[in-house]
């Protein structure tokens, strides 16, 4: 019983983890149709922000909750202004550009900080006990933060003027421009927001996984598959794909081992795409298209 309960919590964490690493990518891909191959490096930059800040005496919570999203969000805005905005309407070319960007970030971080960086941070908040089983309190907190983040993004998109304009611009740039909205500005803000959320996620995960310049490569494939499986709707898609894929991954990992867990995740994604070629939300929530 205790095992079941703590295992369920664990699977929630797997799901939250997947949603957390995918959301930034989902926003940029869903709203701008830009496949950001440097997504993993945005996560990495978030992690580095936290590690470098805490190594210099900054409070861990401040570094994770404020510094990481702000720094990476700012980097995102700069990237959008200098690079991405020249490529709108050339979706495939953004693949090449962001691939280059990904290499650039890895290279620059390795040049500055070396191949690995010592850290002193560890997950805060101690241990949560369920009977004889213990879980990391911080991991439980991450479940809550992820849920909160999804709700916050939902509220921003749904109820703020910015969200409405952004959704309109993504649907039809010409129309929005005719209404006097600066599409260029909207794209910049969207890309910055996506980057900030990736940085936020990377910062939150830094105490759990540690940071390396090359750690982005571990995330990108998984995030990509989650976003595509989710389909057109950014939030409902990311959430539902995370639940499905993360749930399958967590259960299979526990039952058979981590390798089959990974394979099960990918196989589920393929089967999903075979029967719902436009992703989960494409089939189930038509309105969100």
């Amino acid at each position, binding site marked *: 019983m205790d095992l079941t309960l703590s295992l369920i919590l664990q699977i929630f964490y797997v799901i939250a983890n997947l949603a957390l690493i995918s959301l930034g990518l989902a926003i940029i891909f869903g709203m701008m149709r830009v496949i950001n191959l440097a997504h993993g490096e945005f996560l990495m930059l978030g992690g580095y922000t936290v590690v470098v800040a805490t190594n210099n005496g900054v409070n861990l919570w401040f570094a994770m909750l404020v510094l990481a999203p702000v720094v990476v969000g700012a980097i995102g805005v700069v990237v959008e202004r200098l690079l991405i905005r020249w490529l709108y309407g050339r979706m*495939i070319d953004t*693949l*090449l550009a962001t691939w*280059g960007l990904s*290499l*650039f970030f*890895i290279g620059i971080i390795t*040049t500055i900080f070396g191949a690995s960086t010592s850290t002193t941070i560890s997950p805060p908040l101690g241990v949560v006990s369920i009977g004889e089983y213990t879980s990391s309190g911080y991991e439980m907190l991450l479940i809550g933060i992820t849920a909160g983040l999804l709700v916050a993004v939902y509220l921003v998109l749904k109820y703020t003027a910015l969200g409405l304009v952004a959704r309109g611009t993504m649907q039809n740039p010409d129309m929005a421009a005719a209404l006097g909205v600066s599409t260029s500005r909207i794209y910049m803000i969207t890309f910055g927001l996506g980057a900030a959320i990736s940085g936020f996620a990377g910062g939150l995960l830094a105490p759990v996984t540690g940071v390396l310049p090359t750690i982005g490569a571990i995330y990108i494939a998984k995030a990509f598959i989650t976003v595509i499986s989710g389909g057109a709707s950014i939030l409902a898609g990311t959430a539902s794909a995370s639940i499905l894929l993360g749930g399958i991954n967590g259960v299979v990992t526990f039952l058979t081992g981590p390798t089959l867990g990974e394979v099960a995740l990918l196989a589920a994604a393929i089967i999903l*795409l075979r029967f719902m070629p436009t992703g989960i939300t494409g089939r189930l929530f038509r309105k969100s298209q």
Partner: protein
Amino acid sequence: MNGMFGQFRGTLFAALLALIFTIAAPSILEFFTIITLTQVIGLSILALSLALIWGYGGILCFGQTAFFGLGAYSYAIAAVNIGGSTGAMFIAVAVAAAFAAVLGYFAFYGKISDVYLAVITLTVSLIMYSLIRRTSGPEYKIGDALLGGFNGTGAPPLNVPGNAGAVLFPEHTFYVAMVALILLYVFCGWLVNTHFGRVCVSIRENEIRAELLGYDTRAYKLGIFTVGAAVAAIGGIFFCIGVTRVTPDVFSLGQASLTIIWVIVGGRGTLAGPVLAAFGLYYLTASLGTQQVVNTSLVLGIILIAFVLLAPRGVVPGIEKLATARRAGRRNRAKERRMRLRKPRGGISEDRHETG
């Protein structure tokens, strides 16, 4: 025929240049360069295969590496078991083509949209990556061939057909690989000029129209997809012979992205461009790895970013465009001006990739 269809003469000319290069290689290149060329040729055949199905067939296959890797692994496993390379090559091509036919059948007859086809093929490649890395235990054997998991498995060298003992020297393997590249290049150039190829191009341009003309677009797409997979598999064979080994990395996201990047850099709608891009990027990366001054990733990243900003149409179409503009300019400047006042050329065919 001219325009898109009329490039076959150019193809033959490029093939002739490549043939001259092959013959001249020993006197212009260093010995070690020649023997390491085999793996680069393998990669460039992979680029050719994607140039065919994406550039001409309009099928953005993000996971072309699935067939490349499948070809390489099938070859290595078959060659170890048969004890000779000739039959193994045929088996490898057949395995990859059959796999592509099944995958393509589900995708095209299931009416999966362009973008999702890209993602599904990528996912297939990543699944293979995960699965093959699972096989590091000694229990994972196919016949006599140990799969080796993460470490991969050895790829036997080429031998003279019918005589498994007569193994080719690496420099001779280079000739075989180069001839294979040239033949495949000419084959692809010929294919896109056949009726079949032209219909594939028309499907790229406008699938609904092609269908309304009475062409079964699913069958054509499946056809060119399968041919592309077979070509990619041949690339995989030469790649693993060149490396002497095949590892799961052939299926990785990195290799998959790189394949797309060759076609973008070389230019969509040409066959020679992506092939040259594969060569160029390989030697750029390889030469960066010989220096100790700056971080390799950093330099490569900057070059790619600069490229996408400065040469958006890819190298070969960019050069072609320059050349055409100059020639046309000499012939009739006034007419050119009139045309430019209307719509920008080619904009519409590019737009297709953004929808979906």
